[in-house]
């Protein structure tokens, strides 16, 4: 088991609010790690630490280390653009650009300097195939992405992330806006993607964490309460708070 993402004594503040408290977590390579917990526990913030998307917000402060393949992603020498190419993200709000299906997937490549041509085209098509969307959009790549259904749009967003050939893909509650059938498709896809990528998925849906993940982290009010193999967490949680959450006593 290779450690892909590691945090050491990670603390995070929004202004004066202490959102993440001394987080130490080791996320294994090529597996699905779920981060679950009730609203406001800091799980989305933790996810956005991994691709430095919190940088966009004014007045945040971070201490401790976040290592990707052993290198601190918050060190001065890190190229944030390249970091975000290596660590892709799929959002809760299904957010394809109001462009064609093709241009949505090509967006990241163009950002990183790719020119139009067969190389770009084949990467776009491969990414759409990898996101299990090809059969539904084959032949209509130049139609607007906004004409797709919600579930298709979310898989398009996954294709968009895959096109950059990332090593890690972050999913921030990717199914909370989707119907059960679309959710099943995305979960199936996540199962498939973990062969190639390290997947970290934030969810407040306990069943989803149980279904898709190999490892589960449980967070509460900024603390990482427990982190273990998913079957371990769900069958014999060590912490009382985890058990109370899983049995529905709060959350």
């Amino acid at each position: 088991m290779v450690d892909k993402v590691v945090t050491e004594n990670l603390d995070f503040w929004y202004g004066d609010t202490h959102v993440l408290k001394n987080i130490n977590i080791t996320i294994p390579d090529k597996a699905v790690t779920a981060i679950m917990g009730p609203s406001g526990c800091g799980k989305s913030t933790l996810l956005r630490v991994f691709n430095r998307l919190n940088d966009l917000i004014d007045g945040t402060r971070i201490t401790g280390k976040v290592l990707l393949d052993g290198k601190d992603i918050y060190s001065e020498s890190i190229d944030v653009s390249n970091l975000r190419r290596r660590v892709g993200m799929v959002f809760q709000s299904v957010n394809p650009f109001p462009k064609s299906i093709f241009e949505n997937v090509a967006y990241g490549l163009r950002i990183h300097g790719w020119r139009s041509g067969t190389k770009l085209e084949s990467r776009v098509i491969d990414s759409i195939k990898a996101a299990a969307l090809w059969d539904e959009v084959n032949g209509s790549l130049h139609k607007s992405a906004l004409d797709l259904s919600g579930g298709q749009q979310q898989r398009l967003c996954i294709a968009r992330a895959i096109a950059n050939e990332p090593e890690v893909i972050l999913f921030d509650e990717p199914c909370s806006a989707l119907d059960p059938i679309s959710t099943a498709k995305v979960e199936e896809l996540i199962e498939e993607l973990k062969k190639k990528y390290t997947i970290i998925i934030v969810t407040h849906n306990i069943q989803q964490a149980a279904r898709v993940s190999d490892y589960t982290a449980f967070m509460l009010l900024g603390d990482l309460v427990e982190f273990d193999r998913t079957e371990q967490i769900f069958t014999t949680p060590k912490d009382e708070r985890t058990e109370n959450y899983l049995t529905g006593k709060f959350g």
Partner: protein
Amino acid sequence: MRKQKEFLGLLLVRFSVLFVLISLFIILMFVAVRGFEVIDIGFLLEPPRAGMTKGGIFPAIIGTFYLAMGSILFALPLGVLSAIYLTEYARLGKWVRAIKIGVNALAGVPSVVFGLFGLAIFVKFFGFGVSILAGSLTLGILILPTIIRASEEAIIAVPRTFREASFALGASKWQTVTKAVLPSALPGILTGAILGIGRAAGETAPILFTAATFYQRRLPHSVLDEVMALPYHIYALMTEGTKPEFQVPIAYGTALVLLLLVLGINLAAIILRTRIRRAKKW
């Protein structure tokens, strides 16, 4: 008692709307009926003749076209870039508030003041003379607030999630603005631009000292030429010359052409806006 108040209130608002509609209708009909008498193909495509007592208004139509296009060419890039700065780059604070107050104040300045400013700066100081260039720049400043406000609104309306998606793929700020935000805001920006064109086409005072000429048979040769323009032509017909019996009908014809032009431009903006609203699914 309450019912009576309700009834009176309804009566009041209904009467107000009716009053507005009737006034609008009377103005339109007044100009349309009088103007229609003189309008024909020749009126639209011929230059004025016989000391503006005969002939058409072709040079004025062309002049207004040049001035409106020139002003938008100047104001659109400047306005959009300013809006990008105000919405995406500037941090909220005294400085941005001051700029926004300034932009709003600019919108409230009487248009004749822009005319004086244009005369002093573009005509005299920069030495453009009374010309299309000086007039376009003056009109451009006049419509800047319209463009800036419309662009700001359009940019702010672009969902935050588009920006996040772009950054998350590794885009820089400028890449995000140009490739994700602006294309999504473009329809709103264009609506503002069209409204700006309509405003520029209809204004008289800003071009009074900066671009318009009273009478010109030929078309302008360069941007440093002075031009005839529709609103100024009306003014000239009504104030200059010695044969009002011939000039006044031509003035109404010109007014009708100008009115239709501006209404058409505004209509185009409205159609564009509703179409976009329908197509917009985020």
